[in-house]
């Protein structure tokens, strides 16, 4: 069930902010892989943490190469970039130069994927920071192979952290952003997902409202 914590106009503004962010991310990615990146129209859902499952996240594959980074500032968000497993290495090959064999590349996979995630996620988050007039710091990226259930489990962790600091424990919310980055030559898709705890979400909402007040 969808939680109604954002007004329609706030959802619209937030979607547009992420849209600009995804545009910058796609530019970075296209320069790395030397191919146009097709972007889907972003959609945002605010969900109760307990309602989030792999179906809601629209993760159809079994395994994903995930790069995640924590962004902190006026609010905290975990940004996760997912690529379908088989093709992550091909993207790494394009980054590193095509003369290397896939076997040799496996050695660099972790480092290269972290760097790729770092570039893409920072492109996206920096657009958001610029538009909202805030400053966001990022942690070092971490790379993991994750199943949809493991990704969902991370959300559950977030809820636990939250309930510790929140006395009126009426459940926490997560913001799930869906943007697909499609690389046709590589037959692969990347997904961007942003996870915010309810505390951070309410802070983000106040910044979005401020942004709206300034522009309208």
């Amino acid at each position: 069930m969808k939680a109604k914590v954002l007004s329609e106009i706030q959802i619209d503004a937030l979607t547009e902010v992420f849209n600009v962010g995804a545009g910058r991310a796609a530019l970075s990615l296209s320069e790395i892989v030397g191919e146009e990146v097709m972007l889907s129209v972003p959609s945002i859902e605010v969900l109760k943490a307990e309602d989030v499952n792999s179906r809601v996240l629209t993760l159809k594959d079994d395994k994903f190469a995930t790069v995640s980074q924590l962004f902190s500032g006026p609010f905290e968000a975990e940004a996760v970039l997912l690529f379908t497993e088989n093709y992550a290495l091909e993207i790494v090959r394009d980054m590193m130069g095509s003369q290397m064999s896939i076997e040799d590349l496996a050695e660099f996979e972790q480092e290269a994927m972290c760097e790729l995630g770092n570039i893409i996620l920072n492109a996206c988050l920096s657009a958001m920071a610029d538009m909202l007039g805030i400053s966001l710091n990022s942690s070092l990226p971490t790379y993991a192979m994750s199943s949809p259930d493991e990704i969902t489990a991370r959300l559950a962790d977030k809820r636990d952290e939250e309930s510790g600091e929140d006395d009126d424990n009426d459940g926490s919310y997560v913001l799930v952003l869906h943007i697909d980055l499609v690389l046709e030559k590589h037959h692969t898709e990347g997904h961007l997902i942003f996870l915010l705890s309810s505390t951070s979400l309410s802070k983000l909402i106040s910044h979005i409202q401020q942004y709206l007040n300034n522009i309208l």
Partner: protein
Amino acid sequence: MLATQSPKKVLIVDDSKVSRMVIKAHILAAYPEWSVQEAASGDEAIGAVERDLPDYCTMDINMPGMLGTDAAEIILAKHPQLRVVIFSANIQEAAQSRAQQLGALFVAKPVTEKSIAQALGHFARGA
């Protein structure tokens, strides 16, 4: 820009209501006498142009349904005199050159006073 220009008609195409509101507000701040129409998709834009031909058009690219650049191509094929600005968050080379091929000006989002000024400059050069 000549103060004696007759009032113009602008069509704003964007799936984001906020973006349409901001573009509209900036345009009307500069030209209070202009009339503004809005469309939320490429299909709606094509319909709006047929009903009431505007002088100028701002067009988003990534929208549900048809791409804004495809809608602009259809519109410009029929109405080549229309001045079009492609307003997009997708700032990749491919998107920019597509806009150029259409004879439209590419302006990177976010929609700000500065980016609106670029669009208005493009409109004025066609007046």
